[in-house]
């Protein structure tokens, strides 16, 4: 798929999800059994606590993330935080609780439908320190050196130009600022039929990079102290229960053995990186 086409299908896919309300991880295009309960189950599985799930407005958690609690735990009061691909605002609200009144959280997302939801959630819960902008993570609408921490949860894999996303992230972070992302990466290349599937792209599979290349791309953008804080195998039961994956499996008449191999190549990682001082 060409870059433009990828952007279009990702936007349309997530607009559809925003309208449907709730969906299983990462983001299947069809949902057989979506709903708030399922979103909560998925979020619990990827590491959010009960308190965190209770602490956000209802409807903000669509269960689309691969989990970013480590990043949230590291936030300090007064931090300016940028969330790349903020969706309905789940991580933004959790971050807002952490940074307090003196802090600010800015969510950037390219899907109008998601942002409308996020804004409605912010308004209902009266969050004064969260703001949303319609924007593209490859072209961030923020000034140089203006942000303390950039967080992102299972989004960068969707970008057709990840190199540029990390370059833009580096630009907007202040020297000494941190990148704390959670994302899907690969240990082995995926078979072609999955790589070519639009459904699998939206579901965070086909766009995923090889792990080493992902880490290398962050380093090449200028980041230092690039560390993988946590690494989890994408659970196979989640894949079998995922309507997107199920559709692909059915269409391809994939034997279980091969399915296991695919599942074994997909992992969720949490990465920490720092923009060095003295680069301004």
């Amino acid at each position, binding site marked *: 798929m060409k870059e433009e086409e990828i952007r279009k299908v990702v936007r349309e896919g997530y607009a559809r999800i925003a309208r449907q309300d709730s969906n299983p991880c990462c983001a299947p295009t069809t949902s057989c059994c979506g709903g708030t309960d399922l979103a909560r189950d998925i979020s619990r599985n990827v590491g959010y606590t009960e308190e965190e799930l209770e602490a956000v407005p209802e409807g903000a958690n669509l269960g689309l993330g691969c989990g970013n609690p480590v990043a949230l735990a590291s936030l300090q009061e007064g931090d300016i935080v940028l969330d790349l691909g903020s969706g309905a605002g789940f991580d933004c609200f959790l971050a807002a609780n952490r940074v307090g009144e003196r802090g600010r959280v800015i969510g950037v997302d390219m899907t109008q439908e998601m942002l409308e939801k996020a804004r409605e959630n912010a308004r209902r819960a009266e969050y004064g320190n969260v703001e949303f*902008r*319609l*924007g*593209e993570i490859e072209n961030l*609408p923020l*000034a*140089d050196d203006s942000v303390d921490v950039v967080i992102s949860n299972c989004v960068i894999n969707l970008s057709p130009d990840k190199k540029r996303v990390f370059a833009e992230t580096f630009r907007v972070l202040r020297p000494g600022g941190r990148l704390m992302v959670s994302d899907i990466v690969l240990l082995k290349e995926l078979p072609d039929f999955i790589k070519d599937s639009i459904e699998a792209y939206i579901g965070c599979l086909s766009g995923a990079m090889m792990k080493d290349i992902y880490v290398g791309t962050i380093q090449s953008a200028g980041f230092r102290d690039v560390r993988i804080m946590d690494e989890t195998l994408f659970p196979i039961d989640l894949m079998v229960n995922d309507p997107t994956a199920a559709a692909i499996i059915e269409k391809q008449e994939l034997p279980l053995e091969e399915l296991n191999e695919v599942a074994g190549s997909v992992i969720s990682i949490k990465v920490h990186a720092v923009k060095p001082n003295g680069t301004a």
Partner: protein
Amino acid sequence: MKRELMDILACPMCKGPLQLEVTEEDENEVITGSLKCTQCPETYPINDAIPNLLPPDLRD
């Protein structure tokens, strides 16, 4: 969109500073208006308190 966050906003294309023009505002924030780049010819709309800072080809 809150006025106090203006200083960290920038044009997504040329990264130049943006100038705010307000059409409608309540006690908390700007509801409708626009953000005009001071360096390049782009102008970005603000609708329902959300600035649309998508690159022009994605704005539709």
